[in-house]
């Protein structure tokens, strides 16, 4: 079987941010307890003219640029999100059209809470591995919503990451994949409801930790590897605390998980979360580095990947904007009023 892996990657983060203090002040909550308890300081907010589609397009353009691949060479374009802008009309067609992949291209939108992004990656990878297509694009993008005053409002944020998979000029070879899932009702949104419901503490042990640890242990057993075999690890990161706890329980060190941990300053980008963390790792990875990635989506399940970085990584890292500078530089802070306007939380009559 031929080797298949990531040949290009890109992340796009909007410039707007809101601090935990600005949200807590409106709801009479204790900002310090959120910062300490969830290890969360601020989150990204999409602009009024940004959504899952626009961020997916920008991240994909960066990924194609790094890959040196034209849109028309893509045999598949898959995008995972829980905030597809239309209820009926694909995100993938707009994305594919914008990057010039149409009309000979297979496109689908995925949904699985925060895991939809790694599903898009997995299916792109599998299509290339099967020899059905030469290149496939897998994107995770979200502009997630938290109900006003709910704990989720402190974390639900926006961002996108895109990966081109192929069999030539690989920068991160996929060595193993593994999926672990059960029917677990930890988080959901019924049709026509504005905001999701969640099971509070039930989202922790029986949901996030059971599946994240299950997938991580499963893929390491499959690969006959242990935590010390990896240079980096990235987990789904609904807040800053959960992925650090998952890393510690599995025996990973801070040096292994801190590079891919972006949520404390980005928030939970849902389908983009572990994929954006992976782009932050690839930005600084060196040839030979081994990376473990484990996503998590409520409902619930995890996809795990083991990658080995190749020599080519050094040639493409600087070909498009990196993730950390997008996170740390040129930020616009919003007050809660403007944030509420941006996120459509102010009720108005239709114009």
């Amino acid at each position, binding site marked *: 079987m031929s080797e298949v892996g990531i040949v290009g990657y890109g992340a796009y983060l909007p410039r707007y941010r809101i601090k935990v203090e600005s949200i807590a002040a409106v709801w009479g909550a204790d900002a310090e307890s959120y910062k300490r308890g969830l290890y969360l300081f601020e989150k990204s907010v999409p602009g*009024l*003219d940004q959504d899952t589609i*626009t961020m997916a*397009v920008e991240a994909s353009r960066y990924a194609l640029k790094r890959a040196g691949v034209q849109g028309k060479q893509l045999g598949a374009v898959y995008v995972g999100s829980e905030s597809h*802008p239309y209820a009926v009309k694909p995100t993938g067609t707009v994305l594919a059209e914008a990057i010039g992949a149409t009309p000979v291209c297979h496109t689908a939108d995925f949904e699985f809470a925060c895991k939809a992004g790694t599903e898009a990656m997995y299916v792109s990878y599998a299509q290339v591995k099967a020899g059905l297509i030469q290149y496939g694009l897998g994107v995770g993008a979200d502009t997630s919503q938290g109900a006003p005053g709910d704990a989720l409002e402190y974390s639900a944020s926006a961002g996108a990451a895109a990966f081109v998979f192929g069999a030539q000029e690989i920068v991160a070879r996929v060595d193993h994949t593994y999926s672990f899932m059960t029917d677990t009702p930890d988080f959901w949104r019924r049709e026509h409801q504005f905001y999701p419901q969640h099971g509070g503490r039930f989202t922790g042990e029986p949901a996030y930790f059971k599946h994240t640890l299950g997938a991580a242990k499963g893929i390491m057993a499959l690969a006959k590897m242990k935590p010390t075999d990896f240079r980096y690890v990235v987990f789904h990161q609904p807040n800053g605390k959960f992925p650090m706890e998952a890393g510690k329980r599995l025996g990973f060190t801070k040096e292994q998980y801190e590079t891919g941990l972006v949520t404390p300053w980005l928030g939970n980008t849902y389908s983009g979360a572990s994929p954006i963390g992976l782009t932050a790792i690839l930005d600084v990875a060196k040839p030979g580095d081994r990376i473990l990635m484990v996503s998590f989506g409520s409902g619930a399940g995890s996809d795990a990947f083991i990658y080995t970085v190749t020599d080519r990584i050094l040639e493409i890292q600087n070909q498009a904007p990196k993730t950390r500078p997008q996170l740390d530089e040129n930020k616009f802070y919003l007050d809660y009023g403007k944030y509420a306007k941006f996120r459509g939380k102010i009720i108005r009559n239709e114009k």
Partner: protein
Amino acid sequence: MKIRSPRYAREIPQRYRCEAVKAETGEIFFPPRVVYPKGVKVAPHTLAQTGKVLSYTILNVAPMEYSDLTPYALGVIELDDGARITAQIVDIDTAEIKTGMPVKIEFRKLRTEGDEGLLCYGYKVVPMR
């Protein structure tokens, strides 16, 4: 609600991918024309994705569909290949915009046709940083 799908679909190659044509003389036509002056031969050309602000204006009172965005800037942008486009300049405080400022094209939502209609996408420009 007036259905504008046909017009929106027609403009996709330009709005999404900046598809233009270039004449042998070097002149760029954007959008491409239906017919060209006699003897002018053109070939497909994709507009440069970076350029600079030639001129701009700030809108404080905007048409209904754009009223949530005020104040916003609309600029004439000269791209690096010489083509000039009209585009919104976003992701910047309008007071900081200057002529000559380097910008790049980004994909954004241009317009929303009310609560029921289409979401319309296309290019805007953002400052190069």
